[in-house]
């Protein structure tokens, strides 16, 4: 990934992690993790609880030392130059640690002093970040009296105050109700336009909505790394056209004819529903027009003709959890392609989305924002 990235962007990576391992006693939280994140990227750490997301973020934030391997943020080693690193990151832990006995602006003032901001800088930045997170009218309120969603926003404001190069957000929407979640997600999307952001979540729609690049962690290892479209293309292979029609006695013929369409890799018989018969035609390209034309030519009464791609959720289930989920999805037939958990990470070689723009589509058919972002 690093080499490919170097061709796209001359800047050194903002975050560089090499063979990072962290053990807690006999438990290995993360194992031989390596990746790089370029300036302006928005990267989502995805993984089930206990996959090592928080541990990795804590190491990058300078809180935990690694057992072996190394990591650098903005060119500074997280262990040897920890204070330099801490000056350059805005880290928001999952628990959103804030002093409940302080007012919102006092909490921000404290953070400003910790980061050695001058009085005039604090006076300038505090209203600015409060405005950014929409808390300007609550700056005199006690932190302890705020709702969970507002606390989260204060936490984001605290992380943003020193104008960090990198924002590291651990489960930024955990514990929020759906409305607050949408709010915070929108806020992160805005921040993503200006900062390098690394966030973790076990909630897939979150990652799909916010992060162009996804890293799937499983049992402390990097199981997959790439844009959603790349992951789907490379790992999925499970795109298909679902075809359902009244075929009468022509079921065998239909299967043969469908398999003969150029581009069709395999036809899976999904069985009969009433008078209709259902097939999934595995293919990399959208063959709906060809199949539609065939149906018209043969006089089959169409009931469904749809282009189905594996969702990140299905990929996640396959890669991280090592199972295929229920086989209703279009990925059902391609279990054999998924790597077992704990195997080498699947590196998707391509230029990472350097601008961090949302909705970027590095490859065709990668419109991954729609399913969940509506």
């Amino acid at each position, binding site marked *: 990934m690093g080499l490919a990235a170097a061709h796209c962007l001359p800047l050194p990576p903002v975050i560089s992690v090499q063979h990072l391992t962290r053990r*807690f*006693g006999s438990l290995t939280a993360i194992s031989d993790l390596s990746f790089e994140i370029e300036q302006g990227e928005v990267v989502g750490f995805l993984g089930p609880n206990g996959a090592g997301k928080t541990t990795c973020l*804590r190491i990058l*934030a*300078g*809180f*935990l*030392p690694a057992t072996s391997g190394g990591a650098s943020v903005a060119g500074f080693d997280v262990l040897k130059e920890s*204070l*330099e690193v*801490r*000056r350059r*990151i805005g*880290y928001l*832990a999952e*628990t*959103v*640690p*804030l*002093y409940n*006995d302080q007012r919102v602006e006092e909490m921000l003032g*404290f*953070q400003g*002093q*910790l*980061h*050695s901001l001058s009085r005039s800088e604090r006076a300038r930045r505090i209203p600015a970040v409060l405005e950014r997170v929409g808390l300007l009218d609550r700056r005199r309120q006690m932190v302890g009296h705020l709702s969970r969603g507002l606390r989260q926003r204060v936490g984001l404001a605290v992380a943003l105050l020193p104008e960090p190069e990198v924002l590291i957000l651990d489960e930024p929407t955990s514990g929020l109700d759906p409305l607050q979640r949408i709010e915070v997600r929108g806020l992160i999307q805005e921040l993503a336009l200006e900062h390098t952001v690394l966030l973790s979540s076990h909630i897939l729609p979150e990652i799909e909505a916010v992060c162009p690049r996804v890293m799937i962690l499983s049992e402390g290892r990097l199981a997959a790394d790439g844009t959603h479209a790349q992951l789907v293309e490379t790992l999925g292979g499970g795109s298909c056209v679902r075809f359902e029609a009244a075929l009468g006695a022509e079921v065998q013929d239909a299967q043969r004819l469908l398999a003969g369409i150029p581009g069709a890799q395999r036809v899976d018989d999904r069985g009969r529903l009433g008078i209709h018969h259902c097939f999934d035609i595995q293919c990399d390209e959208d063959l709906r027009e060809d199949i539609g034309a065939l149906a018209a030519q043969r006089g089959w009464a169409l009931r469904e003709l749809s282009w189905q791609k594996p969702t990140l959720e299905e990929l996640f289930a396959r890669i991280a959890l090592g199972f295929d989920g229920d086989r209703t999805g279009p990925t059902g037939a391609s279990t054999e392609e998924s790597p077992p958990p704990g195997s080498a990470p699947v590196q998707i070689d391509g230029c990472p989305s350097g601008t961090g723009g949302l909705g970027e589509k590095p490859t065709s058919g990668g419109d991954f924002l729609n399913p969940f972002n509506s």
Partner: protein
Amino acid sequence: MKGTLTIFRREVSALFQSPLAWVLLAVSLALSGWIFVAVLEESGGSVKASLAFAGGGSKVYWMIMLFLPPLLTMRMISEEARNGLLEFLLTAPVSDGAVVLGKFLAAWFFMAVMWSSSLVYALVFEVVGSAPDWPPVVGGYIGALLVSALFCALGLLSSAAFKTPALSAFVALSGSIGILFLPALAGLFEFGWLGDTVAAVDILAHFHRSFLIGVVDSQVLLFFLAWAGFFLFLAVRIVEAKRWN
């Protein structure tokens, strides 16, 4: 150390915002004031005797000295480790030492404010015309500061070492009582060199021989600061170790 002052200010404002601190302050001042007035009446108005009592001669004085520091410091690290604020501080661009030192200074400052009541009593005498003997008063105050430093450092160490404030306060209190009374206990029996060693760290003896007669011996000064520094050093190491597990 960079950040120490920031942490100190935050802790002081938190202390003075919490009801606990005001209750401790009120109870301590009421008790010492009551003792002071009682001694003043009983001694027939002896300025010297009453000030000596207010500055370290009474049991109440030592009760306050033992109980307050653990109660002030018990939450400072243990609670923050639990609610994640320690993670916030340890990922801020300040060293672990600055965090511990800032908190220690805040607790110490609180004790300094509280003991300043003895200075106020002396000042009142000065104003009303019966000038007190200032060296023992000032010496007593410095002594109170030094013993407070020692116990605050011990309290902070305990707060770093234990997960709950209550346990931390209990252990710190036990430790403080041990430090204060072990030499007296050791003096009752024949322990040889061990007894001599314990006797050498006799705070009460230091107090009576040095501060209360208005003499601040550099050796004694060093004794208290070195022990307080040692406890703080251990506290920093424990905070550092928290990063590892």
